[in-house]
Structures are given as C-alpha cells and as structure tokens.
C-alpha cells in the first residue's frame, strides 16, 4: 500500500489541544529571548490547569502562565523580566503560596534536561552541596562514587510530557533549524526538546524541504523529535529572536506596569490575549509599525 509522508504542520489551536491539564511542560528560550509566546498565549486561552512548568532561565513565559492560573508547580533558575525588572505575577503567586516554585541552579537545570535528553536516570552534581537547593529532597538524593568514595548529589532527570519551543524555520515534516548565527545558548533548547515525550515547535517561517537539505548541519531537531510544527511569525514577541528581531522593550514595560496589580494583569490579558482568537490578531494589536521597529534585516549567512 502506498502511503503519504506525515505533514506535521498544524494550527496553533490544534497544538494547544495536544497539552492536557496536569502535564509537565518544558519551555525553551531563556530570559527575554525566544520563548514560544504564541503557544503560551494559546495555553492561557485554552485555560489549561495544574501544569508543572520546567525551564532553565525564564521570563514573561512563566510569569504569564502563572498569572493566568495555569500552573501548580514551576522549576527554573530564574523567573524575571531581565532588563525591565522583576516578574510581578510570579512574585505574587509564590509569595502567596499559590504556586510551588522549585529552585535549581542553571547547571542543575541543564543537567536535568541533559539527563532526560540522553536517557540517563539522573545527573551528578556537587552544586547543591551546603546550600538550600536541597530543600526539595524528592528531586535529589545523595549517592557515593564507588571508586573514590566521594559523595555526589543525584539530580533526577527532567522527563516532561511536552516541550514547546520557538525556532527560526522548519519544513512541514518537522525538521527544525536555527539560523547559524545565533546565541549559542540556544543549544539548551535542543536538550529541552529532546528530554520531552512530545515536542511542539513554532517557527518564523516554513521552508521547502530542499532548503533544509541544502543546509543539514543547521538542523537542530530532526523530524523524529518533533510532533507538530506551527507557523507563527514574531512568535517570540515581546522576546527577541536572534538576528531576526529585537526584544520589544516598550511592550515589555507595558506588560510589567500593568502586571503590578492583579486587576491590571487581568486588563492586559483581556486586551491582548483573551480577546485575540489567534496569534495574528495579537500581532495586529501590537501594530505593524512597532513590529517594523524591532525587525532586523541582517542577511543570514548560511
């Protein structure tokens, strides 16, 4: 029987439906860089509940999900808005005990993703010794090196149900590429995706498979790691996206200011998220002028 190859290109709404209440969701990107915001909006719109969110270095992505009451537990080394300050919803929720936050150091978070990505049961670290990272004992145990007798902390591998990432381009089969000139930090996104059972990737552009084949060393996730691809230009906004567009500091300040109170945050969400039925409507509200202002026009050397 002759069969067709699987086309993994789906809509944002369909992608959101792949996530269930109670899932462990790993979110790629770091600080104010390339978080998959289109998917974050969709998770909020679909009112997912009791998620455990995992990241290594997070910002508005975590803050918005926490503010919208989608989250039960969160793991990261950082939740803040970087250049524009602290993350107001995150602070409120953790201070009021509404969300359990588990602190990791950067290396510990990445170690845990790598352990997941490489199929190891745990990672070994000495980072948590004599500090309070050990305050969540169910995630870490002491082990002894049988050769030297040294004590190590075993960090349980992250095994998320689903990972979400925003990337530069992909073909419809799910071969995902990052531009070769990029923050090398982004390699961590690959570990994050590889640690998960399912992966959804939003991209700036869909390209022909021929273009992927012409530049194979740029494929950071081959299709068998990827379950769904969603086209979402400016899909990281207001975060930056490598050489393609800048951090939108203007909108981020607006988000920060409105989020300072619960009422203000609700107003922000009503205006930008709940009343937008898809990502294009959100971008219309941001406006073409603003998007043009943050857009960079570097030629990507491939």
């Amino acid at each position, binding site marked *: 029987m002759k069969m067709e190859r699987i086309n993994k290109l789906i809509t944002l709404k369909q992608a959101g439906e792949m996530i269930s209440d109670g899932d462990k969701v790993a979110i790629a990107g770091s600080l104010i860089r390339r978080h998959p915001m289109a998917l974050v909006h969709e998770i909020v719109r679909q009112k997912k509940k009791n998620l455990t969110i995992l990241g290594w270095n997070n910002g508005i992505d975590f803050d918005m999900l926490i503010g919208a009451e989608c989250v039960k537990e969160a793991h990261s080394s950082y939740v803040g808005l970087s250049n524009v300050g602290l*993350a107001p919803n995150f602070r409120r929720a953790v201070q009021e005990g509404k969300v359990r936050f588990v*602190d*990791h150091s*950067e290396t510990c978070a990445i170690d845990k993703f790598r352990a997941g990505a490489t199929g190891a049961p745990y990672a070994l670290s000495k980072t948590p*010794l*004599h500090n309070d990272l050990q305050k969540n004992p169910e995630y870490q145990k002491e082990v002894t090196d049988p050769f030297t007798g040294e004590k190590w902390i075993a960090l349980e591998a992250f095994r998320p149900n689903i990972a979400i990432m925003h990337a530069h381009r992909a073909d419809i089969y799910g071969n995902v590429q990052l531009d070769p000139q990029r923050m090398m930090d982004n390699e961590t996104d690959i570990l994050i995706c590889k640690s998960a059972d399912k992966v959804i990737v939003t991209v700036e552009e869909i390209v022909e498979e021929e273009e992927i084949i012409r530049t194979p060393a740029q494929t950071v996730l081959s299709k068998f790691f990827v379950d769904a691809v969603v086209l979402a230009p400016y899909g990281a906004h207001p975060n930056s996206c490598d*050489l393609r567009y800048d951090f939108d500091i203007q909108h981020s300040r607006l988000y920060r200011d409105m989020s300072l109170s619960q009422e203000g945050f609700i107003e922000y969400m009503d205006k930008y998220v709940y009343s937008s039925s898809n990502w294009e409507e959100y971008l219309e509200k941001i406006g073409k002028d603003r998007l043009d202002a943050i857009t960079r026009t570097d030629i990507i050397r491939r």
Partner: protein
Amino acid sequence: MKYTLEELLAVEISRHIKDGEMGFVGVGTGGEAFIRAVGIPAVASRLAQLCHAPNYTIMFGPILDPVLDAESIPETNFEPDLIRWPCRSQITVEEALCIFKRGKMGIGFASGAQIDAYGNMNIVCVGEYKNPKVRLPGPLAQPDHAAHAKRVFAIQKHDCRTLVEKVDYISATGNQNREGLAGGGIAFVFTDLAVMDFNPDTDRMRLRSIHPGKTLKQIIENTGFELEIPEKVPFTQPSDDRDLELIRTRIDPSKKWLNAEITKEPATLEKNV
C-alpha cells in the same frame, strides 16, 4: 582628577585581577544592579588587561573573550548586538558548564540581595523560603560559581538590609562550610563604603579599607552584623589619573558600562551613597 564611585570600584577591583585567569561576568539585567554585576567588572577587566593582565579573559555569558575596547562594545546588550560583538568564541552553555566544573574559572563576579558575615549570598528570597516576604528571580548560575570558581568577588550595596548576620537562603556558599566543594570561596566584598575580605581563622568578614570620604562609624551603622575591624584600617587607594584617563577615553567614554547606558536603562550608584 575627581572620580566617581563607579570609577573608584572599577579601579580597585582591577588591582585584584591576576594575569592568565578568567573571570565570569553575567549578561546582567538593567539599572543599578547591572552596574554592580556587569558594568564595574567589565571596566575593571579591561583596565586589568591594559595595565597588568594581558592574558586575562572574560566570559560574558555565551560571549567568550570579547574585544573590550570602547569602539567594539555594542550599542545595546540585546541579542542581535551581542551576537555581533567581536569575540574569539561563542560558546554553548554546555561549554560554559565544563569551564566551571573543570575548575577553569578564576573569578566569579557576583552581586546579591543579601550577603552574610560568612560570605553566603542570597538572590532567591527575603524571608522564609516556604513563605517568602520577597520572592526574587532565582539562583541563576550563582551556586555553580560559588561551588567552582577559584575566587568570588561580591559587589554589593552597603546597608543593613543587604549585609546581614545570616542570609535567608544560601544561593552561593560562603566560607564557613565548603566540604566537598572544589572552588575557593568568596574573596572580597566591594561596597559603596568599603572593601572587605575574610579572616581565614574565623571565616568572618572583616574590613580591609574604607573609601576616601567615608567613615568607620558609617560602615558600622550600615552593617547588619558585627564586622571584624582590624586595629588599623587604611583608605581605599584612590584612582590615579592614568587609570581614569584610560576609563574615560579608551574603555568607557559613553558610560555604557558604568552608567548602564548599554542596557537602555541608565542609572548611577552615587545617589545611594
């Protein structure tokens, strides 16, 4: 020549940098916090390279060994500019981890919400961990630095809320209990008022020098624990004209570092003195 507090600190810190070692500077956030955590260490690093440590390099987030002269410094610290910042290597996080875990990091520049008498630092929360008064962003790579760097240099605001007897959360391990940790612990604390180091016998913080124009009384009143005070405390050596000239013409003429202009959220430390 007159000098600012930022300049005084940058020059003082540069004197403690050794040739051949590597320093870690985070990418930083904005405003005053940026000046302490990033701006001052960056200027101190370049000054050290120009004066006595030509083989000293910095790791600036994923940018390894960047060109630190003013004309090469990017306009902003946003991603597209950072990628274009001339440097010898752009490294993966994986790579950065190896550098720490393999004991190749000389100085970790750090700044925290709290630092205690033993040099433990806290950037996680104020108040009880389970029920915090103020919840801060999180430990970042600070535990890694404290565990692995040969020396930690802390740059802090000097007041009783920051310098406390015991931190509410240890995100960076100080000098009291370092069993099993390869790094050397915290070496210096540089503040708006003074320079402190640690007494190797007691592991407690002790006064090393007082900035010109500041008083011992001011320091005692603004420290939330009993600071060890030697019989004779010198003044911090003022910045000389050569250093100031280098900073103002070659290293940081447009105040990208010392006034955080690069972050587009400029600030100054002076108003807090």
